[in-house]
């Protein structure tokens, strides 16, 4: 069956360090993979996505890497800031773009 999961439920990093959040998936038919950020009391917010035919995509302070061989996705956040503290979800898009399946989430805590 389909599943999207995360290796670490909680990640603590020092302010200014780089953060790496990992995600494993099992559905090879996914069209896109997405990272969402959810701050406390708010809805998920789109961060960055990557097509299934790409290996890497960069945004502002964030990079997503996709390794289809081992079905692994990661989100790298450079120079982590207190405002980055949130729960991060990976998600996969299937069904011709009509279905978004979320992983279980990783809590990122930034220590001052």
């Amino acid at each position, binding site marked *: 069956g389909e599943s999207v999961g995360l290796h670490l439920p909680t990640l603590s990093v020092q302010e200014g360090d780089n953060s790496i959040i990992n995600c494993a998936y099992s559905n090879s038919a996914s*069209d896109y993979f997405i990272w969402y950020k959810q701050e406390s009391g708010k*809805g*998920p917010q*789109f961060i960055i*996505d990557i097509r299934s035919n790409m290996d890497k995509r960069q945004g502002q302070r964030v990079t997503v890497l996709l390794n289809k061989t081992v079905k692994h996705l990661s989100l790298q956040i450079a120079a982590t800031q207190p405002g980055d503290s949130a729960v991060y979800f990976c998600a996969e898009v299937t*069904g011709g773009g*009509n*279905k978004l399946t*979320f992983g279980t989430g990783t809590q990122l805590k930034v220590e001052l």
Partner: protein
Amino acid sequence: DTAVSQTPKYLVTQMGNDKSIKCEQNLGHDTMYWYKQDSKKFLKIMFSYNNKELIINETVPNRFSPKSPDKAHLNLHINSLELGDSAVYFCASSQEERKAFFGQGTRLTVV
């Protein structure tokens, strides 16, 4: 201006009651969704509507009935509420599924 707004933000009700959550988006998107987030933060899609037409209906009890009067609104009505329905419900909209915009959520507590 709030892009996706849902009301109420908090809803506390007794078992057996019927309640509705409203959602409106002012982004001009064709597709709207309802997601349920449980106490462990797991997010799962419940319904998806495109231009007022139901396109995704996951395994959700038929006590849950979405209604889309127009493409800017997708309301969720829940009959005979149960304790297990307690969760945060998120409405979202998109033109492309991968860039869905989410509302602030409605925290439903059934007592």
